Structure formats: C-alpha cells, structure tokens
C-alpha cells in the first residue's frame, strides 16, 4: 500500500486490516469488501466517507466488536490488553458519536468504567480517571451526573473514558458529529492538543472533509458500493491547518473527487483500490 506504508516496520503497526470484507447476511451481500488498512504508531488517520457507507462498521471491526466475514485483522486484540491477566491497560478504546455515558454514574464513575476489571487498586483507578478528566478539562465536574452536562462536556467525558485505559489505538466514531459548530471547533482544537501531548494512534471517522483536514496526518477515503472500499488516501503535509490556505483547498478538492469516484483533479497521485 504505497511506499510510505512499506517503510513501516512490523513493530510500529498498531492495527491492520488485510482484504477485509463484511457481510451481515453470511456472504450474500457485502457492506465492505477488499479493505486493507495499516495504522502505524503515532498516526492520526481520518476515515472519511459519506454517511452510511460503512465507516462505523469498519471501526467496529477494528475494535473487535464485529468479526469480518473475510480477510484478516492484525495488531493487538481488544479487552484486557494483549490478554494478559495482570493488564493495567486496554489495547483499544472507543469514543462513540452519542457519548454513551451511563446516566447512573457520576462523571468520574463513567471514566472509571473501562478501568474496572484491570489490575489496578481503587486509588490507582481513581487517580488515572482524574488525570484523564484533567486532560479534557473536566476535573471540576468529577462528581456531576451526565444529565447535568452539556453535549460538548459529555463528549469530553467519552474521550476521557477512552484515554484513561491507555490504549494503543483510539477509535473515534464521528465523536463531534452531533455538536454545534462552535463546540465542535473547540473540541477539535482540544483533540489536537491532546494528540500532540499523548501521541496516541487515532482513527477518526468523519463525513466532514474540513474536519478530516483539520485533524489528521493521513486521510483515508471509504466510498462507493455497496460494497464500499477504500478509494484513495492522502498523507497530509500542511504546516498550518487553515481552511483559507490554497493547500487546504487543494486537499479538499482532491478528497471530494475521491469520495465521488472522479479522477484526481491534481496534485500527487494517490493510491486506489483495485475493486473500485
């Protein structure tokens, strides 16, 4: 998959999919097919595509919540990291579009949800959860119930809950899709800051080209179908993530073409799956 991918050593691969296909009816109709994707340590990959194309499904395959009908998945599996009995972290964590907080737990309790069952004592769990809340700027809301939070705050708790299990791979399913534009922009900036601090490997699902270009180091386009496949990818090289710059607009035009399945309007060549 391109020269840049070949350069990645096996140790740096956090997760991979090889020729993955997914069917909900046992192989008659495929939602996704011939999808290959490798995520290298420290990357921020945006998985871009139109609504309903199967991005969330692909994310769930990576999370281990769904099993591919064909093809292989690689990298450490989900739940108590690497299957070690004394694990203190999980290899993968997920942020959902609808925050999905437990209404009966406080903010702190929600963040500690993923820590329960790990080999940590109570004070360690609490300290880890509080640290994650600090990272998302909600340390003062630890005792509040989710219903007392705004939509943006809820989403931050979801991010903290995922970060606190110290995952190798952070999977984010359109986490800011349901927020108002102002909250959305501020959370995007915050996510950028957190990513620069933690250097987590992130796969971020979105249908918003601008959001992908603001956040990612690499954008992978999932389109076409069904079955949908990866129609192209761009490694972003932008010093400044400003939508008004020519570089940003060129990238946006190329991504639009990839989504629509049209020829590349210019710039360097991009990889294209054989299937589409």
């Amino acid at each position, binding site marked *: 998959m391109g020269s840049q991918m070949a350069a990645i050593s096996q140790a740096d691969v956090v997760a991979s999919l090889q020729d993955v296909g997914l069917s909900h009816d046992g192989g008659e109709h495929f939602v996704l097919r011939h999808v290959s994707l490798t995520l290298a340590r420290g990357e921020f990959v945006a998985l871009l595509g139109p609504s309903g194309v199967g991005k969330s499904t692909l994310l769930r395959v990576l999370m281990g919540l769904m099993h591919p009908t064909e093809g292989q998945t690689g990298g450490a599996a989900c739940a108590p990291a690497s299957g070690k009995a004394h694990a203190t972290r*999980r290899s993968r964590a997920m942020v959902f579009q609808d925050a999905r907080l437990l209404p009966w737990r406080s903010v702190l309790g929600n963040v500690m949800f993923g820590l329960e069952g790990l080999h940590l004592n109570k004070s360690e769990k609490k300290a880890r959860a509080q640290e994650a809340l600090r990272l998302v700027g909600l340390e003062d809301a630890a005792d509040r119930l989710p219903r007392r939070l705004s939509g943006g705050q809820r989403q931050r708790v979801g991010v903290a809950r995922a970060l606190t299990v110290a995952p190798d791979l952070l999977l984010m399913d359109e986490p800011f899709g349901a927020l108002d534009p102002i909250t959305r922009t501020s959370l995007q900036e915050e996510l950028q800051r957190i990513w620069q601090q933690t250097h987590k490997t992130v796969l971020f699902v979105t249908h918003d080209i601008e959001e992908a270009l603001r956040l990612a180091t690499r954008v992978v386009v999932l389109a076409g179908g069904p079955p949908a496949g990866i129609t192209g990818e761009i490694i972003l090289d932008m010093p400044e993530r400003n939508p008004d710059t020519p570089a940003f607009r060129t990238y946006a035009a190329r991504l639009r073409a990839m989504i629509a399945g049209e020829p590349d309007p210019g710039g360097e060549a991009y990889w294209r799956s054989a299937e589409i």
Partner: protein
Amino acid sequence: MSRKLSGSVRLGLGLAGLVLFFGLWEAAVQSGLLPSGMVPAPSALGPAWLDEVRGGFWQQAILDSLHHYLLGLFIGSVLGAGLGILCGMLDLLDGLLEGIVRLLRPVPGLAWVPFAILWFGLSTAGATFVIAISVFWINFYAAHSAVKSVDPELYELASAFGHGSFVGRLFKIVLPASAPGIMAGLRTGLGQGWMSVVAAELFGVPGIGARMMQASSLLATDVVVVYMLTMAMLYAITDFLFGFVRKWVLRWQP
C-alpha cells in the same frame, strides 16, 4: 385550573376528603339511611379496635400477617425479579419458559390455596407460598420488560470496555439500567402482597385475614372494618418506607 397544586394544599385536600367521607358515612348510618347491621358506623370502630387491642388479638394478628407478608414478599420478589432478569437477558431461557409462563400467569394466587394446604398444611409456609406466587408474577414481568428495554448500545459500550461477559453485562449495565423498572415492580408487589395476605390466610392460618374471616362469620362488621383499615395502614407504612429505598437506589434519576 392550569397551575399545579402545592404539596401542602394537596395534603390538606386529601385529609378534607377523608373527613368528608367518614362524616357522610357516619351521618348515613346515624340517620338510618344505611342499616347499622350491614355497615358499622365509623364511631363504632374505635371501641371495636380497643376491644381487639385489649384482647391482644390485634397485635398478634399484625405480627402473624407481617411474618407471612415479609417472607412471601421476599421470596416472591427475589425469585420473580431474578427469573425476569435472566429471561430478559437470555433469549434461549426466555423461549424455553415462554409457554410455561403463559400457562401459569393467569392463575390467581387464590387458586393455589388448595395446593398450599395440601403441600404445606395450615402453616406459615402455606400462607407464604400463596403470597409469594402473587408477588412473583408482578416482579417477573416488571423485571423482564425492564431488561428487554435496556438500550442495546449500552451492551456495545460494555463490550468495548471489557465488560462484554454475561456477568459484566449483568452488573455493569443490566441491573443499574433496569433498576427503575425493577423498583416499580417491587413497589407494585408490595401492595399486591398485602392484598394476597387475606387470600393466604382465608383457610385458617392465623393473621389479619383469618381474624377478618372469623369476625365476618359472627357478623361483627365493625371488627372487619377495623382490620380493613389496619391493612390499609400497614400498606401505607411499607409503601412509605420503600419510598426511601427507591429514592436511594434511583438517586441518579432527575
């Protein structure tokens, strides 16, 4: 009237309604509108109650019935809610039991009395059994539908964070998420339990129900009403106390 009444106004209205009810009742009996042999006057209830207390019957009946009630309530609630939760979570078990449930559900607690006598005799166990059965179904259905209506996305959340096992789902998701429905079932069962106390004691196990039957066979209607009111009071007390438990368990709710 679009504005909601305040709590104290409501309470006052309720008391006024009660006073009015007993006043009209007393007047109807005193004026001869209601024959006193058929309906006791409210003023006759106090002396009747005092007689029962002096004889020690009242206290003993309450203790006996409370014993049946609490035991039957506990057994019926735990088994009913427990099986309801399991059936709600496990489709296989749910399917297996569906026919049996449909068969047994319409049988009222009273209909089990012959078997209660046969199996347990005129004993605490027999009365407990009848109460437990009627409480069981209420809790079974309440817990079953509460678990069935748990948002499936919460199961996905549990799986994503390492709690996808049966035990993890049960304790991290199902129990807290279905607690409002389960608590509603327990509360309904609390009332149903008192209602079935009479049925459970009809056949002679001592208690409030048995005392009522004795009194009615002697046409001592005032004593019957005393025990009717006693039962209402006991129900009010248990419901009031349960209110605290419910509030504490569901303290996260608005």
